[in-house]
């Protein structure tokens, strides 16, 4: 079973994402900000990260930069999932090392489509 770390400061979004990902047979781990997410990655590196952008303490981009510096941190497929829905933010995320990008609002079909494009499904 593949694992996915869901990083979002909204409990509701984490819950929705968890439900979708569990249906896609992922083991889901949650983190409410980038710092907590880094701590989780230090314990166990997930196969995938579904990553919000704007969060308190440490935002998505800062998390991604930190993750890619960790041993084995190049492995997880990172899929941004954010309300920042313009080309410049997409470019920034991809240059920072994100593998895919989801513009909120999302649904099960979009998550499935993006996860299959990066080979997670």
């Amino acid at each position, binding site marked *: 079973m593949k694992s996915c770390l869901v990083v979002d400061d909204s409990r509701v979004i984490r819950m929705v994402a968890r439900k979708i990902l569990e249906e896609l047979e992922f083991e889901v781990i949650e983190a409410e900000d980038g710092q907590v997410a880094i701590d989780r990655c230090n314990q166990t590196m997930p196969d995938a990260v579904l990553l919000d952008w704007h969060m308190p303490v440490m935002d998505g981009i800062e998390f991604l930069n930190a993750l890619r510096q960790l041993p084995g941190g190049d492995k997880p497929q990172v899929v941004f999932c954010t309300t920042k829905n*313009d*080309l410049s933010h*997409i470019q920034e995320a991809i240059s920072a090392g994100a593998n895919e*990008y*989801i*513009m909120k609002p999302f649904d099960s*079909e979009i998550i499935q489509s993006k996860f299959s*494009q990066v080979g997670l499904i």
Partner: protein
Amino acid sequence: MIHPEDFELLRRIVKSRSGLTLSPDKAYLLENRLMAVARKWGMNDIEGLAATVRGTPNEELLREITEAMTTNETLFFRDQSPFEQLEKVVLPRLLESRQGTRHIRIWSAGCSSGQEPYSVAMVLKQLGSVMDNWRVDIVATDISRTMLDKARAGLYTQFEVQRGLPIAMLMKYFSQAGDKWELDPGIRAMVHFDEFNLLNDPAPLGRFDVVFCRNVLIYLDQPTKGRVLENIRSLMPDDGVLYMGGAETVMGVTEKFQPVSEHRGMYEIVSATAGNYPRGTENYASNP
């Protein structure tokens, strides 16, 4: 609830004009979809619509009734693998075999809002300079004028560009236009859209090396499916390739095509020169 005789009348119109088969359990669907048409034409209900059709059948009204019953579900790079095969298997072969004419023709039959032919166009564009000095015609047809208008406009919602389209392709070939995403004019210009009813003789469309007819025939009955596939065959050279939907089959429908092994949804022509691609598992035992 729709009257059985009204359902029968409308069902027959749709069937004769498009081949779409509506079983009685689709009465609710017909009612749902045709209410919008009824209102647009100033009628309050399906009964009124049926009465008008019985009285003075207006061509435009009949067309709109038919169009309203079509299913336009589609997405960019649907099922992924046909587009990977096109790039890695089919086009390389054609680049060899069509060296003489340097001309390849591809048909997206039942193109809906354009995601399929545009995906083909993006695959070609990605090949880069290999395609220099080659002429590739991508012809995309649909029965629905509404869908063709949408396809030509090349404007897609945020939801549509997130289904099937890799983010790298979005960044490369789309720009933001308000809350929509607009496909690059260069890609749009690679596709020629035309209104075409698959029940008609496709000969005027010309010859096609590759035909995409995916998840279109599923709405037709067996004899109609067979007829359409034979028409498609008549436009293709013996080494042509047909793509159908992942859940579709030619078994019991036509003996003109056979599946290609390890390439789900890909079919080659059954003929003396067949065997261009490894034979599929679904094939007919009688073929050598």
